[in-house]
């Protein structure tokens, strides 16, 4: 019989005291160490083949640029106003798209909150509607807000949601300009990088390993690899899944 409370206490103290406490930030000093040069935890990665599927070109500049996005659409997206304050409607813009499951397209939308935080939200939409037009068949997949600027770490703060074998994720992009999601069967899935996040989706079958997210700098240098292992939402309701 384990002494559970003692074990929890011991674990929390161990994790807390292992926290890498950075120097106190000052206005002239970035608070977070550059993950590329300062984090010993990174792994060397083999270069991998380029992803064949790519983000849909931003042909359409999007209705948002002209302020044409209907408020009902903006409201339909899953922002996090308790974090960012109300979304500034004029700031809402399309961040990127990739092909989704059959009949669907995965899109990322980006906006700024009234407090200046940058928010992203992920959706699946009908692929019959042109990219940039107001989407139809919106299926909300989650969103996140965070302070803008530099200092974010690739693949930190990932969020994963989904059901019925289809999952989507959003993680901090940090310094990466390109990322790939490698499935256990060798398939390489494209990603969208927008609003400081790298986002995308993947099919997953219970009992199989989770996919690996690989990030690269602009010159092709691998930054890190992060495995998105299940379970993702062991205690979460509804669409949180991936439990053994």
């Amino acid at each position: 019989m384990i002494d559970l409370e003692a074990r929890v206490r011991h674990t929390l103290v161990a994790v807390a005291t292992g926290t890498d406490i950075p120097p106190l930030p000052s206005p002239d000093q970035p608070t977070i160490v550059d993950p590329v040069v300062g984090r010993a935890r990174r792994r060397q990665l083999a270069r991998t083949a380029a992803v064949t599927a790519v983000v849909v070109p931003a042909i359409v500049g999007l209705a948002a640029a002209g302020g044409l996005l209907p408020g009902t659409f903006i409201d339909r997206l899953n922002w996090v106003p308790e974090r960012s304050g109300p979304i500034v409607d004029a700031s809402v813009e399309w961040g990127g798209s990739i092909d989704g499951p059959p009949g669907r397209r995965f899109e990322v939308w980006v906006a700024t909150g009234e407090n200046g935080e940058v928010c992203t939200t992920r959706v699946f939409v009908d692929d019959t509607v042109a990219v940039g037009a107001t989407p139809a068949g919106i299926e909300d997949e989650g969103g996140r807000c965070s302070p803008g600027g530099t200092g974010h770490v690739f693949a930190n703060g990932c969020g994963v949601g989904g059901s019925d074998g289809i999952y989507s994720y959003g993680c901090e992009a940090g310094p990466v300009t390109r990322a790939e999601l490698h499935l256990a069967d060798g398939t390489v899935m494209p990603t969208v990088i927008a609003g400081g996040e790298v986002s995308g989706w993947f099919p997953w079958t219970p009992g199989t390993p989770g996919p690996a997210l690989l990030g690269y700098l602009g010159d092709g240098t691998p930054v890190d690899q992060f495995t998105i292992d299940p379970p993702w939402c062991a205690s979460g309701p509804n669409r949180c899944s991936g439990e053994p």
Partner: protein
Amino acid sequence: MDPPTAAALGEASADVQAAGFDDVYRTLWPGLMRLGHLLTGSEVVGQEVAQEAFIGLLRRTDQVERPASYLRRAVVNLAINLQRRSSRERTYVAGLREQVQYPPEIDETWALIATLPTRQRAVLVLRFYEDLSETQIAAVIGCRRGTVKSLASRALARLRQELS
């Protein structure tokens, strides 16, 4: 003059302006960052949360009597709100990378704690790391004492089930 202790800033009435914001910051920063880390599962996010709490304090220096208590409550609430990414998603913290390699027992327990719903995790952190009473936890989270009891009970039951 020596900076005030964390205990003095939390338990006794201490005017932030009198104590000096810089000293408050210097004294409480490490502890709040650790608390943010435990609550969010991420060092980086924990830092953001702690900084945001200090920004809140800076805006209210003339109103806050117990800065440590105020900041702790702010960090907890910010961490809980941060996790509310959306109704269809829970922040994935179990696999967040750590710089430190822990013994397997700690690794296993931490991974399970990280999968708990945010409020359950917060209760465990406040009870077993911050050593707060149920009444104090209720005040920090903004719920009734019975809710704290229930959240702790469910969290421990889940951990016991998974670890047995």
